[in-house]
């Protein structure tokens, strides 16, 4: 048999459980046997223990929830700013050809600069407290917002646009009442990508410039050789990122269903 056939749900779960068991067993064995020094790799249970401790105990000036809250505050501002600028601009570029022609070369050029390379200017212009990191998040989250809104608007069925112009629809109403709803699935998909990229940029920014937040906590953990703190930080970043992705996925599905498009 060249390709393996489908397997039952029960088998899938069983293999998955075995996989996880092997993963955690090998990890624990590496630690307990002393192959990897304990300082550099704590047991999985120790990381969860450290995570629970950090929920109530201060490290690097704040408890874990406080750090996360600081990060989420920055993140939301940066992400919302990116969406608020990127989506309308994308739609406008999708509707006005001249705007597209003028702005596309600029964005094409900026595309190749890694978002994180904006860190020095962000720090210089907006400081390291709040503004700097927000600009980095913006740099990471902006392109997918813009690109998906633009693409969504460009691929709106011409017959819809013709029907709307036949009814005498003006520019503003065309964008707001035709292009926006028609490209909503594409926009939401873009927001989901941009949420992920923004979250990752936030972490990067906080590693370099910030005096609180989850990234800062991890840097401090690294400086103090507290591997369990670093890994508890990774765990929280993963959990928050996963939660946000699920939420946006839900929004994507709901919108897709409401507009009658199979996703």
């Amino acid at each position, binding site marked *: 048999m060249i*390709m393996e056939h489908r397997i039952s749900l029960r088998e899938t779960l069983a293999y998955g459980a075995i996989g996880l068991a092997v*993963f955690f067993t090998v990890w624990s064995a590496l630690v307990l046997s002393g192959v990897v020094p304990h300082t550099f790799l704590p047991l999985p249970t120790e990381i969860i223990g450290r995570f629970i401790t950090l929920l109530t105990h201060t490290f690097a000036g704040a408890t874990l929830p406080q750090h996360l809250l600081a990060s989420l505050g920055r993140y939301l501002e940066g992400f919302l700013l990116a969406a608020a600028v990127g989506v309308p601009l994308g739609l406008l570029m999708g509707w006005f050809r001249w705007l597209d*022609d003028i702005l596309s070369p*600029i964005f094409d050029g900026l595309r190749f600069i890694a978002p*994180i*390379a904006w860190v020095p200017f962000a720090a210089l212009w907006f400081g390291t407290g709040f503004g700097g990191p927000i600009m980095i998040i913006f740099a990471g989250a902006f392109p997918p917002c813009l690109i998906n809104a633009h693409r969504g608007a460009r691929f709106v069925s011409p017959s819809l646009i013709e029907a709307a112009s036949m009814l005498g629809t003006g520019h503003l109403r065309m964008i707001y009442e035709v292009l926006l709803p028609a490209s909503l699935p594409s926009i939401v998909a873009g927001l989901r990508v941009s949420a992920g990229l923004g979250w990752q940029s936030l972490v990067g920014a906080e590693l370099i410039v910030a005096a609180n937040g989850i990234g800062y906590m991890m840097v401090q953990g690294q400086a103090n*050789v507290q591997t369990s703190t670093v890994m508890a930080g990774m765990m929280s970043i993963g959990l928050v990122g996963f939660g946000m992705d699920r939420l946006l996925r839900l929004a994507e599905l709901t919108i897709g269903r409401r507009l009658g498009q199979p996703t």
Partner: protein
Amino acid sequence: MGFYLRMRRAMVALSTLSALVVAWFVLTTVTGLISSGRFPDPFATWAAMRQLVSPGYAGSTLVVHVVHSLTLVLGGFMLASTLGVSLGLLMGWSRKAEAFINPIFLLLRPIPPLAWIPLAILWLGLGDAAKIMVIVIAAFVPNVINTSTGVRTIEKTVFEASQMLGTPRWRFVGEVLIPASLPAIFTGLRLSLQAAWTTLVAAELVGALAGIGLVLNVAQQDIYPAMILSAMFVVGVLGWLMTLLLGFVERRALAWRTA
């Protein structure tokens, strides 16, 4: 796209970029609306660029920094792609392997590559090994996902035709499975390359002994805007060149596809 349309777009792009340069010049040098402490003027940037090329900045010349960064990013990218594509092929081909690996993958995937940087530094220090580690982590995931999806979306008749012709397993992998997934593999490679480059710049910004990220870092500490802009320019050009190179390889490798 027609010739006329392409010419028009090129002309508009050229005018936009020239207008941008003129605006830059006017805002900084001519009127001084933007202070040189916030954003450098064209002459200062040119001077910084020349300084970076020779005698150098942040410990070495531009060539040394660039070679250092490129070696790391390409080495890490290739290592990650080899591992990632192989694992993706395995997971696409075998439902059992997929069921076995997927939960571990789901556990680690939500952690963004940049979040591995502190751990990498803790484990491997500020040297090249830590950079390779985070690049591999960053570039690995898109390869696995796209390759396994690629395998899953191969048409059934392609497998049946290959079975009917009595294709032995090793030849099946090399001449059917891999070429059939190649378009998806390249999608993964493009995403990985981008992730690898972003991650390397970030890792070098956090701490490095050489590399273009270090230039950015030192320029930031020196509050030297002209050097910051020069380094960003280099980051952009290198990213562009690598994408161009991969696009060239892709067009060669997928020449058999419908245009």
